[in-house]
């Protein structure tokens, strides 16, 4: 049944995902197992397929939509069972940057992989990143930029997080961003695409 759930998720079949989640719960499977072995494994598989150019943005978005529908059914039960998310990620685009397609894709992939997302939206100042990270007890700050001119704001985010005494990593990404640049500004993480962002956050939290 959980395999079917993964397949429905990969096909982006929202109604089917909802029905299979209901079915799994009715069969007595704990919500955490439905999440971890059904939906999250499905999203992990999707991430690999995305990296391998077997699926593209439309397929990822419909799968994420199906994931969210399934998750909505599980959430009350997960809260009841005190199941914790893998971590909390505060995410946004840099100050001055309105381009959020990539950021939204990363947020969806992370949510689909069991992380709680605090989406700060676009044009987020370093102070706002810090404020949100502090108030949500975040495990990671993720920052995106499309423009070479706004990319420089990432350094300010890294510095602000450090100055606030938050011992959490900053992951950066976006078209002009490179691993070299991440190293240069001392950002702990860098992701060239949405699927890699999930891996990178996982790596940083496991470290």
């Amino acid at each position, binding site marked *: 049944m959980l395999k079917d759930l993964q397949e429905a998720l990969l096909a982006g079949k929202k109604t089917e995902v909802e029905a299979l989640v209901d079915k799994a719960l009715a069969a007595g499977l704990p919500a955490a197992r439905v999440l971890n072995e059904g939906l999250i494994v499905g999203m992990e598989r999707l991430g690999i397929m995305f990296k391998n150019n077997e699926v593209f*943005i439309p397929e990822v978005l419909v799968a994420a939509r199906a994931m969210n529908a399934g998750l909505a059914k599980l959430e009350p039960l997960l809260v009841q069972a005190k199941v914790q998310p893998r971590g909390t990620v505060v995410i946004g685009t840099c100050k001055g940057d309105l381009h959020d397609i990539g950021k939204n894709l990363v947020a969806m992939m992370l949510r689909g992989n069991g992380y709680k997302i605090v989406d700060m939206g676009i044009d987020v100042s370093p102070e706002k990143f810090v404020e949100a990270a502090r108030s949500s007890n975040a495990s990671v700050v993720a920052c995106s930029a499309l423009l070479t001119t706004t990319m420089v704001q990432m350094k300010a985010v890294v510095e602000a997080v450090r100055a606030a005494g938050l011992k959490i990593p900053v992951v950066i990404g976006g078209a002009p961003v490179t691993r070299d640049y991440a190293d240069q500004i001392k950002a702990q993480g860098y992701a060239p*695409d949405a699927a890699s962002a999930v891996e990178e956050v996982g790596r940083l939290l496991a470290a």
Partner: protein
Amino acid sequence: MGTMTPRELVAATLRFKHPSRVPRELWTLPWAEENHAAALAGIRARYPDDIVRPPAVLRRPLITHGEEYKPGVYVDEWGCRFENRQSGIIGEVKEPLLGDWKDWRSVRVPEERLTLDAARVDDFCRATDRFVLARPSIRPFEQLQFIRRPDNLYLDLADPPDGFYRLLERLHAFFMEEMELWASTAVDGLFFADDWGSQHSLLISPALWRRLFRPLYADYIAVARRHGKFIFMHSDGHIEAILPDLVEMGLDAVNAQLFCMDIEALGRRFAGRLTFWGEVDRQHLLPYGTPDDIRAAVRRVGRALWRDGGAIAQCEFGIGARPENVAAVFGAWDELLENP
């Protein structure tokens, strides 16, 4: 060969017929003018463009609001609303013009674009010895993104509703009319565009691209062929997967982000069959590299892609680019045929 006009030079490049030098064209965003006016003027004086745009004088003006490259809101001739917070660049659509595909008929095509003063274009073409490239805003995929907002459109593409096909058909009919109109003038080349790549791959599957969009581009290319015009396309991102299709359809020149792709592999597959109309890496090299880096990059592109033609010295003086690097692009291309 030494007396080739710029027009002849570009044509010889596109036909792989030994041009006397590599033709050039500088693209700029208003940001360059705002931040480096003197340097830009110097580059233009030293390396004049061989490719120019004709005047697009319309008998009925376009209906737009605001300024496209200024902070604030700009509404284009379709009614799409762009939000911008940075001077010198274009903004992003945050609110879709079309919220529900049921209302696809409500999208108004900007017919003003079809009121082109063709005689003015012809006069311009006759008066110049440079290669005249018409650049109407023919970009079906991007226009749909502006109409629907990009994230909505990507979801639509996973399972396109009937309204999607209807609107696409309508847009295409309009673009075809516009392409025919420009093709009837004395311009040397025609142009269409759509950004198809992310940094590492296509944005949608090649199969979906072939089903929905390839036929549209085939039609635009056919118009150019029928009228004896060269045909150019711009597409950002990693687009290697669709280049064979574009070559097969008869595209003459593509403006692509070469540095997102394996340039040597592009050379092995397409050199001598397709002209690469730039570019030099505007994401990393132009803003962060040195003139030496630029010269090395141009030599690399030249080695991979130049086959007695097949490359145009083009780059974008856009946001963050260093003027000395932009100048180095053209200097390096000039040296290429002198010191291969």
